[in-house]
Protein backbone atom coordinates (compact mmCIF):
# COMPACT_ATOMS: atom_id res chain seq x y z
CA UNK A 1 0.00 0.00 0.00
CA UNK A 2 2.80 2.37 0.70
CA UNK A 3 6.43 3.03 0.37
CA UNK A 4 6.70 5.56 3.14
CA UNK A 5 8.39 3.35 5.65
CA UNK A 6 11.39 5.52 5.27
CA UNK A 7 14.03 5.86 2.68
CA UNK A 8 17.19 3.91 3.11
CA UNK A 9 19.98 6.02 4.43
CA UNK A 10 23.44 5.84 3.10
CA UNK A 11 26.79 5.78 4.79
CA UNK A 12 25.89 3.64 7.77
CA UNK A 13 27.50 0.47 9.01
CA UNK A 14 25.89 -2.73 7.73
CA UNK A 15 24.74 -4.07 11.08
CA UNK A 16 23.42 -0.74 12.16
CA UNK A 17 21.46 -0.16 8.96
CA UNK A 18 20.05 -3.68 9.12
CA UNK A 19 18.68 -3.10 12.57
CA UNK A 20 17.44 0.27 11.41
CA UNK A 21 15.60 -1.36 8.52
CA UNK A 22 14.10 -3.83 10.98
CA UNK A 23 13.04 -0.95 13.23
CA UNK A 24 11.42 0.91 10.36
CA UNK A 25 9.66 -2.23 9.10
CA UNK A 26 8.51 -3.00 12.62
CA UNK A 27 7.09 0.44 13.18
CA UNK A 28 5.51 0.34 9.74
CA UNK A 29 3.65 -2.84 10.65
CA UNK A 30 2.84 -1.44 14.07
CA UNK A 31 1.35 1.58 12.38
CA UNK A 32 -0.77 -0.65 10.14
CA UNK A 33 -2.04 -2.50 13.20
CA UNK A 34 -2.76 0.76 14.99
CA UNK A 35 -4.62 2.26 12.03
CA UNK A 36 -6.58 -0.96 11.49
CA UNK A 37 -7.61 -1.00 15.15
CA UNK A 38 -8.44 2.69 15.26
CA UNK A 39 -10.57 2.62 12.12
CA UNK A 40 -12.43 -0.43 13.42
CA UNK A 41 -13.05 1.39 16.72
CA UNK A 42 -14.34 4.41 14.85
CA UNK A 43 -16.98 2.26 13.15
CA UNK A 44 -17.76 0.62 16.46
CA UNK A 45 -18.34 3.99 18.12
CA UNK A 46 -20.90 4.99 15.48
CA UNK A 47 -22.93 1.75 15.60
CA UNK A 48 -26.11 2.95 13.92
CA UNK A 49 -24.41 4.54 10.93
CA UNK A 50 -22.06 1.58 10.56
CA UNK A 51 -24.89 -0.92 10.83
CA UNK A 52 -26.82 0.90 8.11
CA UNK A 53 -23.89 0.67 5.74
CA UNK A 54 -23.32 -2.96 6.65
CA UNK A 55 -26.99 -3.78 6.00
CA UNK A 56 -27.00 -2.05 2.62
CA UNK A 57 -23.85 -3.93 1.66
CA UNK A 58 -25.17 -7.19 3.09
CA UNK A 59 -28.39 -7.04 1.06
CA UNK A 60 -26.55 -6.06 -2.10
CA UNK A 61 -24.09 -8.94 -1.67
CA UNK A 62 -26.61 -11.54 -0.52
CA UNK A 63 -28.84 -11.21 -3.59
CA UNK A 64 -26.40 -12.33 -6.28
CA UNK A 65 -24.91 -14.97 -4.00
CA UNK A 66 -28.38 -16.39 -3.27
CA UNK A 67 -29.09 -16.56 -7.00
CA UNK A 68 -25.73 -18.22 -7.60
CA UNK A 69 -26.58 -20.85 -5.01
CA UNK A 70 -29.98 -21.44 -6.61
CA UNK A 71 -28.29 -21.73 -9.98
CA UNK A 72 -25.80 -24.24 -8.62
CA UNK A 73 -28.64 -26.32 -7.21
CA UNK A 74 -30.53 -26.23 -10.51
CA UNK A 75 -27.46 -27.32 -12.43
CA UNK A 76 -27.11 -30.18 -9.98
CA UNK A 77 -30.67 -31.22 -10.78
CA UNK A 78 -30.27 -31.15 -14.53
CA UNK A 79 -26.97 -33.00 -14.29
CA UNK A 80 -28.66 -35.66 -12.22
CA UNK A 81 -31.42 -36.10 -14.75
CA UNK A 82 -29.09 -36.06 -17.71
CA UNK A 83 -27.26 -39.05 -16.32
CA UNK A 84 -30.51 -40.90 -15.89
CA UNK A 85 -31.95 -39.93 -19.25
CA UNK A 86 -34.27 -42.67 -20.28
CA UNK A 87 -36.53 -43.32 -23.22
CA UNK A 88 -40.06 -44.14 -22.26
CA UNK A 89 -41.51 -46.52 -24.84
CA UNK A 90 -45.28 -46.93 -24.63
CA UNK A 91 -46.46 -50.14 -26.24
CA UNK A 92 -49.69 -50.44 -28.15
CA UNK A 93 -52.84 -51.26 -26.16
CA UNK A 94 -53.28 -54.63 -27.83
CA UNK A 95 -49.81 -55.89 -26.96
CA UNK A 96 -50.01 -58.69 -24.42
CA UNK A 97 -47.70 -59.16 -21.48
CA UNK A 98 -45.89 -62.04 -23.23
CA UNK A 99 -45.36 -59.96 -26.34
CA UNK A 100 -44.14 -57.14 -24.16
CA UNK A 101 -41.60 -59.40 -22.52
CA UNK A 102 -40.37 -60.57 -25.94
CA UNK A 103 -40.02 -56.92 -27.00
CA UNK A 104 -38.06 -56.26 -23.82
CA UNK A 105 -35.59 -58.98 -24.68
CA UNK A 106 -35.34 -57.79 -28.27
CA UNK A 107 -34.65 -54.20 -27.27
CA UNK A 108 -32.35 -55.32 -24.49
CA UNK A 109 -30.15 -57.20 -26.96
CA UNK A 110 -29.40 -54.07 -28.97
CA UNK A 111 -25.88 -52.76 -28.72
CA UNK A 112 -27.00 -49.18 -28.17
CA UNK A 113 -29.13 -50.09 -25.16
CA UNK A 114 -27.76 -50.62 -21.72
CA UNK A 115 -30.84 -51.73 -19.90
CA UNK A 116 -34.57 -52.19 -20.34
CA UNK A 117 -37.16 -52.22 -17.65
CA UNK A 118 -40.66 -53.44 -18.29
CA UNK A 119 -43.44 -51.83 -16.35
CA UNK A 120 -46.60 -53.82 -16.94
CA UNK A 121 -49.88 -52.00 -17.03
CA UNK A 122 -51.05 -53.34 -13.64
CA UNK A 123 -48.07 -52.14 -11.70
CA UNK A 124 -48.15 -48.84 -13.64
CA UNK A 125 -51.75 -48.38 -12.51
CA UNK A 126 -50.86 -49.25 -8.93
CA UNK A 127 -48.05 -46.73 -8.91
CA UNK A 128 -50.23 -44.10 -10.51
CA UNK A 129 -52.95 -44.78 -7.96
CA UNK A 130 -50.49 -44.38 -5.12
CA UNK A 131 -48.74 -41.24 -6.31
CA UNK A 132 -51.43 -39.26 -8.07
CA UNK A 133 -54.04 -39.16 -5.32
CA UNK A 134 -56.66 -40.05 -7.89
CA UNK A 135 -57.41 -43.45 -6.39
CA UNK A 136 -61.13 -42.76 -6.07
CA UNK A 137 -61.47 -41.57 -9.64
CA UNK A 138 -59.53 -44.55 -10.95
CA UNK A 139 -62.02 -46.86 -9.25
CA UNK A 140 -64.67 -45.61 -11.66
CA UNK A 141 -62.74 -46.87 -14.67
CA UNK A 142 -63.87 -50.23 -16.05
CA UNK A 143 -60.50 -51.21 -17.32
CA UNK A 144 -56.86 -50.19 -16.99
CA UNK A 145 -56.23 -47.38 -19.52
CA UNK A 146 -52.46 -47.65 -19.19
CA UNK A 147 -50.30 -49.55 -21.67
CA UNK A 148 -47.27 -51.70 -20.93
CA UNK A 149 -44.19 -49.53 -20.89
CA UNK A 150 -40.51 -50.16 -21.58
CA UNK A 151 -38.03 -47.87 -19.88
CA UNK A 152 -34.94 -47.92 -22.10
CA UNK A 153 -31.64 -46.71 -20.75
CA UNK A 154 -29.02 -45.84 -23.34
CA UNK A 155 -25.40 -46.68 -22.45
CA UNK A 156 -23.22 -43.94 -21.00
CA UNK A 157 -21.42 -43.35 -24.32
CA UNK A 158 -24.62 -43.11 -26.36
CA UNK A 159 -26.13 -40.52 -24.12
CA UNK A 160 -25.77 -37.60 -26.49
CA UNK A 161 -28.89 -35.85 -27.68
CA UNK A 162 -28.34 -37.04 -31.28
CA UNK A 163 -27.70 -40.71 -30.40
CA UNK A 164 -30.73 -40.77 -28.12
CA UNK A 165 -32.83 -39.30 -30.91
CA UNK A 166 -31.71 -42.03 -33.37
CA UNK A 167 -32.43 -44.74 -30.85
CA UNK A 168 -35.86 -43.25 -30.12
CA UNK A 169 -36.72 -43.20 -33.83
CA UNK A 170 -35.69 -46.85 -34.28
CA UNK A 171 -37.69 -47.92 -31.24
CA UNK A 172 -40.73 -46.07 -32.53
CA UNK A 173 -40.45 -48.00 -35.80
CA UNK A 174 -40.73 -51.37 -34.06
CA UNK A 175 -44.04 -53.18 -34.26
CA UNK A 176 -46.05 -53.07 -31.08
CA UNK A 177 -44.60 -49.71 -30.09
CA UNK A 178 -47.21 -46.96 -29.90
CA UNK A 179 -45.26 -43.96 -28.86
CA UNK A 180 -41.74 -43.06 -27.71
CA UNK A 181 -41.12 -40.21 -25.33
CA UNK A 182 -37.74 -38.72 -24.65
CA UNK A 183 -37.57 -36.46 -21.64
CA UNK A 184 -34.72 -34.46 -23.10
CA UNK A 185 -36.95 -31.71 -24.46
CA UNK A 186 -37.73 -30.04 -21.22
CA UNK A 187 -34.30 -30.94 -19.92
CA UNK A 188 -32.80 -28.89 -22.73
CA UNK A 189 -35.17 -26.08 -21.93
CA UNK A 190 -34.10 -26.23 -18.30
CA UNK A 191 -30.47 -26.11 -19.41
CA UNK A 192 -31.06 -23.05 -21.57
CA UNK A 193 -32.98 -21.47 -18.73
CA UNK A 194 -30.18 -22.08 -16.24
CA UNK A 195 -27.67 -20.66 -18.71
CA UNK A 196 -29.81 -17.57 -19.11
CA UNK A 197 -30.26 -17.31 -15.36
CA UNK A 198 -26.49 -17.71 -14.98
CA UNK A 199 -25.81 -14.72 -17.18
CA UNK A 200 -28.51 -12.68 -15.48
CA UNK A 201 -26.93 -13.47 -12.11
CA UNK A 202 -23.53 -12.25 -13.27
CA UNK A 203 -25.02 -9.06 -14.67
CA UNK A 204 -26.84 -8.54 -11.37
CA UNK A 205 -23.69 -9.32 -9.41
CA UNK A 206 -21.71 -6.76 -11.43
CA UNK A 207 -24.37 -4.10 -10.96
CA UNK A 208 -24.75 -4.71 -7.24
CA UNK A 209 -20.99 -4.92 -6.81
CA UNK A 210 -20.76 -1.52 -8.49
CA UNK A 211 -23.47 -0.25 -6.17
CA UNK A 212 -21.51 -1.49 -3.16
CA UNK A 213 -18.40 0.34 -4.36
CA UNK A 214 -20.41 3.55 -4.78
CA UNK A 215 -22.08 3.24 -1.38
CA UNK A 216 -18.74 2.70 0.36
CA UNK A 217 -17.19 5.46 -1.73
CA UNK A 218 -19.84 7.91 -0.60
CA UNK A 219 -19.56 6.87 3.03
CA UNK A 220 -15.80 7.28 2.92
CA UNK A 221 -16.20 10.66 1.21
CA UNK A 222 -18.21 11.86 4.21
CA UNK A 223 -15.58 10.44 6.57
CA UNK A 224 -12.87 12.33 4.66
CA UNK A 225 -14.83 15.58 4.90
CA UNK A 226 -15.28 15.19 8.65
CA UNK A 227 -11.56 14.58 9.17
CA UNK A 228 -10.33 17.31 6.89
CA UNK A 229 -8.30 19.10 9.60
CA UNK A 230 -6.50 15.94 10.52
CA UNK A 231 -5.61 15.25 6.89
CA UNK A 232 -4.29 18.78 6.42
CA UNK A 233 -2.12 18.64 9.53
CA UNK A 234 -0.81 15.19 8.64
CA UNK A 235 0.19 16.46 5.19
CA UNK A 236 1.78 19.57 6.70
CA UNK A 237 4.04 17.58 8.99
CA UNK A 238 5.17 15.36 6.12
CA UNK A 239 2.58 12.61 5.94
CA UNK A 240 2.73 10.82 2.61
CA UNK A 241 -0.39 10.20 0.55
CA UNK A 242 -0.23 6.57 1.62
CA UNK A 243 -0.14 7.63 5.27
CA UNK A 244 -3.25 9.80 5.07
CA UNK A 245 -5.09 7.30 2.86
CA UNK A 246 -4.45 4.33 5.11
CA UNK A 247 -7.15 4.90 7.76
CA UNK A 248 -9.79 5.39 5.10
CA UNK A 249 -8.77 2.29 3.17
CA UNK A 250 -8.96 0.28 6.38
CA UNK A 251 -12.39 1.79 7.07
CA UNK A 252 -13.49 0.59 3.64
CA UNK A 253 -12.16 -2.89 4.35
CA UNK A 254 -14.02 -3.01 7.68
CA UNK A 255 -17.22 -1.86 6.00
CA UNK A 256 -16.71 -4.66 3.50
CA UNK A 257 -16.10 -7.25 6.19
CA UNK A 258 -19.22 -6.19 8.09
CA UNK A 259 -21.26 -6.24 4.89
CA UNK A 260 -19.97 -9.71 4.06
CA UNK A 261 -20.92 -11.00 7.51
CA UNK A 262 -24.40 -9.50 7.18
CA UNK A 263 -24.76 -11.14 3.74
CA UNK A 264 -23.69 -14.47 5.22
CA UNK A 265 -26.26 -14.17 8.01
CA UNK A 266 -29.00 -13.14 5.56
CA UNK A 267 -28.23 -16.14 3.34
CA UNK A 268 -28.24 -18.51 6.29
CA UNK A 269 -31.57 -17.17 7.55
CA UNK A 270 -33.22 -17.28 4.11
CA UNK A 271 -32.03 -20.81 3.50
CA UNK A 272 -33.27 -21.97 6.88
CA UNK A 273 -36.64 -20.38 6.19
CA UNK A 274 -36.94 -21.83 2.69
CA UNK A 275 -35.51 -25.29 3.31
CA UNK A 276 -38.78 -26.81 4.68
CA UNK A 277 -41.05 -25.84 1.76
CA UNK A 278 -38.35 -26.70 -0.77
CA UNK A 279 -37.96 -30.16 0.66
CA UNK A 280 -41.70 -30.75 0.48
CA UNK A 281 -41.83 -29.46 -3.07
CA UNK A 282 -38.93 -31.66 -4.11
CA UNK A 283 -40.60 -34.70 -2.56
CA UNK A 284 -43.74 -34.00 -4.56
CA UNK A 285 -41.71 -33.96 -7.76
CA UNK A 286 -39.73 -37.09 -6.81
CA UNK A 287 -36.67 -34.94 -7.04
CA UNK A 288 -33.51 -35.05 -5.02
CA UNK A 289 -33.35 -31.27 -5.35
CA UNK A 290 -31.95 -29.51 -2.35
CA UNK A 291 -31.08 -25.85 -2.09
CA UNK A 292 -27.47 -26.06 -1.05
CA UNK A 293 -26.20 -23.52 1.43
CA UNK A 294 -22.98 -21.58 1.31
CA UNK A 295 -20.04 -23.90 2.00
CA UNK A 296 -17.40 -22.64 4.41
CA UNK A 297 -14.82 -21.78 1.74
CA UNK A 298 -17.58 -20.09 -0.25
CA UNK A 299 -18.39 -17.99 2.78
CA UNK A 300 -14.72 -17.04 3.15
CA UNK A 301 -14.65 -16.09 -0.52
CA UNK A 302 -17.75 -13.97 0.04
CA UNK A 303 -16.07 -12.16 2.95
CA UNK A 304 -12.87 -11.66 0.96
CA UNK A 305 -14.84 -10.33 -2.01
CA UNK A 306 -16.79 -7.98 0.26
CA UNK A 307 -13.55 -6.66 1.76
CA UNK A 308 -12.05 -6.12 -1.68
CA UNK A 309 -15.17 -4.22 -2.76
CA UNK A 310 -15.03 -2.11 0.41
CA UNK A 311 -11.37 -1.36 -0.18
CA UNK A 312 -12.11 -0.48 -3.81
CA UNK A 313 -14.91 1.88 -2.80
CA UNK A 314 -12.62 3.56 -0.30
CA UNK A 315 -9.90 3.81 -2.92
CA UNK A 316 -12.26 5.56 -5.35
CA UNK A 317 -13.30 8.08 -2.68
CA UNK A 318 -9.73 8.61 -1.52
CA UNK A 319 -8.44 9.17 -5.05
CA UNK A 320 -11.19 11.64 -5.83
CA UNK A 321 -11.40 13.58 -2.59
CA UNK A 322 -8.42 13.02 -0.37
CA UNK A 323 -5.65 13.81 -2.83
CA UNK A 324 -7.44 17.09 -3.51
CA UNK A 325 -7.00 18.18 0.10
CA UNK A 326 -3.71 20.03 0.08
CA UNK A 327 -2.43 22.42 2.70
CA UNK A 328 -3.39 25.77 1.24
CA UNK A 329 -3.61 28.96 3.21
CA UNK A 330 -1.86 29.08 6.56
CA UNK A 331 -2.89 31.71 9.04
CA UNK A 332 -2.24 35.31 8.20
CA UNK A 333 -1.72 36.43 4.65
Amino acid at each position, binding site marked *: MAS*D*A*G*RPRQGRGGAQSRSEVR*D*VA*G*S*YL*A*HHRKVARESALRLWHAPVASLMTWLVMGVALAMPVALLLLLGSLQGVSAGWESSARITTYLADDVSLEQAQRLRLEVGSRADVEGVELIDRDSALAEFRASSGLADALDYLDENPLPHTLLVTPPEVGRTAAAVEVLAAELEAMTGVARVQVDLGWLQRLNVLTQLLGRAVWVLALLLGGAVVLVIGNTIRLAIESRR*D*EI*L*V*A*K*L*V*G*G*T*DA*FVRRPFLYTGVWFGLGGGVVAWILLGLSLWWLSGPIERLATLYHSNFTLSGLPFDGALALLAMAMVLGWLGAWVAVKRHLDAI*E*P*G*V*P*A*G*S
Partner: protein
Amino acid sequence: MIEFQQVTKRYGSDHTALKQVNFHLDRGELAFLTGHSGAGKSTLLKLIMLMERPSAGNVVVGGQVLNNMPRRQVPYIRRHIGVVFQNHQLLFDRTVFDNVALPLEVMGVPARDVGRRVRAALDKVGLLSKEKMNPMQLSGGEQQRVGIARAVVNKPPLLLADEPTGNLDPKLSADIMHLFEQFSQVGVTVLIASHDISLIHDMGRRTLTLEQGRLTGGMNHGL
Protein backbone atom coordinates in the same frame (compact mmCIF):
# COMPACT_ATOMS: atom_id res chain seq x y z
CA MET B 1 19.93 26.62 4.81
CA ILE B 2 17.42 28.64 2.82
CA GLU B 3 18.29 30.42 -0.38
CA PHE B 4 16.01 32.40 -2.67
CA GLN B 5 17.46 33.19 -6.09
CA GLN B 6 15.49 35.74 -8.11
CA VAL B 7 12.23 34.19 -6.94
CA THR B 8 9.04 35.49 -8.50
CA LYS B 9 5.57 34.14 -7.73
CA ARG B 10 2.60 35.16 -9.82
CA TYR B 11 -1.00 34.17 -9.23
CA GLY B 12 -2.86 34.30 -12.51
CA SER B 13 -1.75 37.03 -14.87
CA ASP B 14 -2.47 40.15 -12.82
CA HIS B 15 -1.27 39.44 -9.29
CA THR B 16 2.39 39.13 -8.49
CA ALA B 17 2.96 38.11 -4.88
CA LEU B 18 6.77 38.06 -4.92
CA LYS B 19 9.10 39.90 -7.29
CA GLN B 20 12.69 38.74 -7.79
CA VAL B 21 13.35 37.99 -4.16
CA ASN B 22 16.94 37.18 -3.20
CA PHE B 23 18.16 36.23 0.23
CA HIS B 24 20.12 33.59 2.05
CA LEU B 25 19.72 32.27 5.60
CA ASP B 26 22.55 30.40 7.27
CA ARG B 27 22.33 27.39 9.50
CA GLY B 28 21.39 28.40 13.04
CA GLU B 29 20.35 31.88 11.96
CA LEU B 30 17.22 33.46 13.40
CA ALA B 31 15.51 36.01 11.18
CA PHE B 32 12.23 37.86 11.03
CA LEU B 33 10.08 38.28 7.98
CA THR B 34 7.94 41.36 8.12
CA GLY B 35 5.73 43.52 5.99
CA HIS B 36 2.12 44.59 5.69
CA SER B 37 -0.67 42.15 5.11
CA GLY B 38 -0.53 41.05 1.51
CA ALA B 39 3.15 41.96 1.16
CA GLY B 40 3.97 38.31 0.39
CA LYS B 41 5.04 36.88 3.76
CA SER B 42 2.79 33.85 3.57
CA THR B 43 3.64 33.23 -0.06
CA LEU B 44 7.32 33.18 0.83
CA LEU B 45 6.73 30.65 3.61
CA LYS B 46 4.52 28.53 1.34
CA LEU B 47 7.30 28.38 -1.23
CA ILE B 48 9.70 27.00 1.37
CA MET B 49 7.12 24.43 2.48
CA LEU B 50 6.33 23.38 -1.07
CA MET B 51 2.74 24.47 -0.70
CA GLU B 52 3.41 26.65 -3.73
CA ARG B 53 5.95 26.55 -6.54
CA PRO B 54 7.78 29.65 -7.80
CA SER B 55 6.86 31.11 -11.18
CA ALA B 56 10.51 31.97 -11.76
CA GLY B 57 13.81 31.67 -9.88
CA ASN B 58 15.05 29.00 -7.50
CA VAL B 59 14.11 28.10 -3.95
CA VAL B 60 16.86 26.08 -2.31
CA VAL B 61 16.32 24.45 1.08
CA GLY B 62 19.03 22.40 2.74
CA GLY B 63 20.98 22.32 -0.51
CA GLN B 64 18.05 20.94 -2.52
CA VAL B 65 16.40 22.93 -5.29
CA LEU B 66 12.69 22.63 -4.66
CA ASN B 67 11.36 23.93 -7.99
CA ASN B 68 10.96 20.61 -9.75
CA MET B 69 10.65 18.37 -6.72
CA PRO B 70 8.20 15.61 -7.68
CA ARG B 71 4.97 15.62 -5.71
CA ARG B 72 5.63 12.33 -3.95
CA GLN B 73 8.94 13.67 -2.59
CA VAL B 74 7.21 16.65 -0.96
CA PRO B 75 6.36 14.86 2.33
CA TYR B 76 10.00 13.92 2.86
CA ILE B 77 11.07 17.56 2.44
CA ARG B 78 8.38 18.72 4.86
CA ARG B 79 9.69 16.34 7.51
CA HIS B 80 12.76 18.54 7.71
CA ILE B 81 10.75 21.69 8.26
CA GLY B 82 8.95 22.42 11.51
CA VAL B 83 6.07 24.86 11.14
CA VAL B 84 4.29 26.93 13.77
CA PHE B 85 1.00 28.53 12.77
CA GLN B 86 -0.81 31.50 14.19
CA ASN B 87 -3.92 29.39 14.70
CA HIS B 88 -1.63 26.52 15.79
CA GLN B 89 -3.57 23.87 13.77
CA LEU B 90 -3.94 21.50 16.70
CA LEU B 91 -6.34 18.55 16.55
CA PHE B 92 -8.93 18.65 19.28
CA ASP B 93 -9.95 15.02 18.99
CA ARG B 94 -6.77 13.80 20.72
CA THR B 95 -4.50 14.59 23.62
CA VAL B 96 -1.60 17.01 23.71
CA PHE B 97 0.73 14.02 23.60
CA ASP B 98 -0.87 12.61 20.44
CA ASN B 99 -0.78 16.01 18.76
CA VAL B 100 2.93 16.34 19.36
CA ALA B 101 3.53 12.71 18.36
CA LEU B 102 1.98 13.15 14.91
CA PRO B 103 5.18 14.11 13.02
CA LEU B 104 6.95 11.09 14.54
CA GLU B 105 4.07 8.80 13.63
CA VAL B 106 4.18 10.12 10.08
CA MET B 107 7.90 9.31 9.91
CA GLY B 108 7.40 5.80 11.26
CA VAL B 109 9.44 6.32 14.42
CA PRO B 110 9.36 3.18 16.60
CA ALA B 111 6.81 3.41 19.40
CA ARG B 112 9.42 3.12 22.17
CA ASP B 113 11.20 6.26 20.91
CA VAL B 114 8.02 8.26 20.41
CA GLY B 115 7.23 8.64 24.13
CA ARG B 116 10.74 9.77 24.96
CA ARG B 117 10.96 12.31 22.16
CA VAL B 118 7.45 13.72 22.69
CA ARG B 119 8.14 14.24 26.39
CA ALA B 120 11.46 15.87 25.61
CA ALA B 121 9.69 18.33 23.29
CA LEU B 122 6.92 19.00 25.80
CA ASP B 123 9.49 19.51 28.51
CA LYS B 124 11.28 22.04 26.33
CA VAL B 125 8.12 24.17 26.06
CA GLY B 126 7.24 23.61 29.74
CA LEU B 127 4.08 21.54 29.21
CA LEU B 128 5.24 18.12 30.35
CA SER B 129 2.54 17.97 33.01
CA LYS B 130 -0.25 18.54 30.47
CA GLU B 131 0.48 15.73 28.03
CA LYS B 132 -2.76 13.88 28.78
CA MET B 133 -5.00 16.93 28.42
CA ASN B 134 -7.01 17.93 25.40
CA PRO B 135 -5.58 21.05 23.70
CA MET B 136 -9.01 22.62 24.11
CA GLN B 137 -8.43 22.78 27.89
CA LEU B 138 -5.27 24.86 27.43
CA SER B 139 -4.87 28.63 27.22
CA GLY B 140 -3.93 30.35 23.96
CA GLY B 141 -0.28 30.61 24.94
CA GLU B 142 -0.15 26.96 25.98
CA GLN B 143 -1.78 25.88 22.74
CA GLN B 144 0.83 27.82 20.82
CA ARG B 145 3.56 26.11 22.79
CA VAL B 146 2.03 22.70 21.97
CA GLY B 147 2.23 23.78 18.33
CA ILE B 148 5.91 24.61 18.82
CA ALA B 149 6.57 21.28 20.51
CA ARG B 150 4.99 19.53 17.53
CA ALA B 151 7.10 21.60 15.13
CA VAL B 152 10.38 20.66 16.83
CA VAL B 153 9.65 17.12 18.04
CA ASN B 154 11.47 15.51 15.12
CA LYS B 155 14.39 17.95 15.46
CA PRO B 156 14.05 19.61 12.06
CA PRO B 157 16.98 21.73 10.86
CA LEU B 158 14.54 24.46 9.82
CA LEU B 159 11.73 26.06 11.80
CA LEU B 160 9.17 28.38 10.21
CA ALA B 161 6.67 30.38 12.22
CA ASP B 162 3.76 32.30 10.73
CA GLU B 163 2.59 35.02 13.13
CA PRO B 164 3.33 32.80 16.13
CA THR B 165 2.49 35.54 18.62
CA GLY B 166 -0.46 37.01 16.76
CA ASN B 167 -3.00 36.23 19.47
CA LEU B 168 -0.79 36.52 22.53
CA ASP B 169 -0.08 39.30 25.02
CA PRO B 170 3.45 40.82 25.12
CA LYS B 171 4.65 38.72 28.05
CA LEU B 172 3.64 35.42 26.42
CA SER B 173 5.01 36.66 23.08
CA ALA B 174 8.38 37.30 24.68
CA ASP B 175 8.36 33.78 26.17
CA ILE B 176 7.65 32.27 22.76
CA MET B 177 10.42 34.32 21.16
CA HIS B 178 12.81 33.20 23.83
CA LEU B 179 12.00 29.59 22.89
CA PHE B 180 12.81 30.30 19.26
CA GLU B 181 16.11 31.85 20.28
CA GLN B 182 17.00 28.70 22.17
CA PHE B 183 16.36 26.58 19.10
CA SER B 184 18.55 28.78 16.93
CA GLN B 185 21.33 28.47 19.52
CA VAL B 186 21.40 24.70 18.95
CA GLY B 187 21.74 25.15 15.20
CA VAL B 188 18.12 25.32 14.00
CA THR B 189 17.48 27.91 11.32
CA VAL B 190 14.44 29.92 12.39
CA LEU B 191 12.36 32.21 10.18
CA ILE B 192 9.51 34.05 11.88
CA ALA B 193 6.88 35.94 9.91
CA SER B 194 5.46 38.68 12.07
CA HIS B 195 4.21 42.26 11.92
CA ASP B 196 4.74 42.85 15.63
CA ILE B 197 7.26 45.65 15.01
CA SER B 198 8.07 46.40 18.64
CA LEU B 199 8.77 42.76 19.39
CA ILE B 200 11.03 42.47 16.35
CA HIS B 201 12.82 45.62 17.39
CA ASP B 202 13.41 44.29 20.92
CA MET B 203 14.91 41.11 19.54
CA GLY B 204 17.47 42.94 17.45
CA ARG B 205 17.79 40.22 14.81
CA ARG B 206 18.08 40.23 11.06
CA THR B 207 14.78 41.33 9.55
CA LEU B 208 13.65 40.61 6.01
CA THR B 209 11.15 43.27 4.98
CA LEU B 210 8.69 42.72 2.16
CA GLU B 211 6.89 45.58 0.44
CA GLN B 212 4.43 44.65 -2.26
CA GLY B 213 6.32 41.54 -3.09
CA ARG B 214 9.77 43.09 -3.13
CA LEU B 215 12.39 42.49 -0.49
CA THR B 216 13.38 45.95 0.72
CA GLY B 217 15.37 45.14 3.82
CA GLY B 218 17.54 42.44 5.34
CA MET B 219 18.85 41.07 2.05
CA ASN B 220 22.30 40.81 3.49
CA HIS B 221 23.53 39.38 6.72
CA GLY B 222 23.56 41.65 9.70
CA LEU B 223 20.83 44.23 10.20
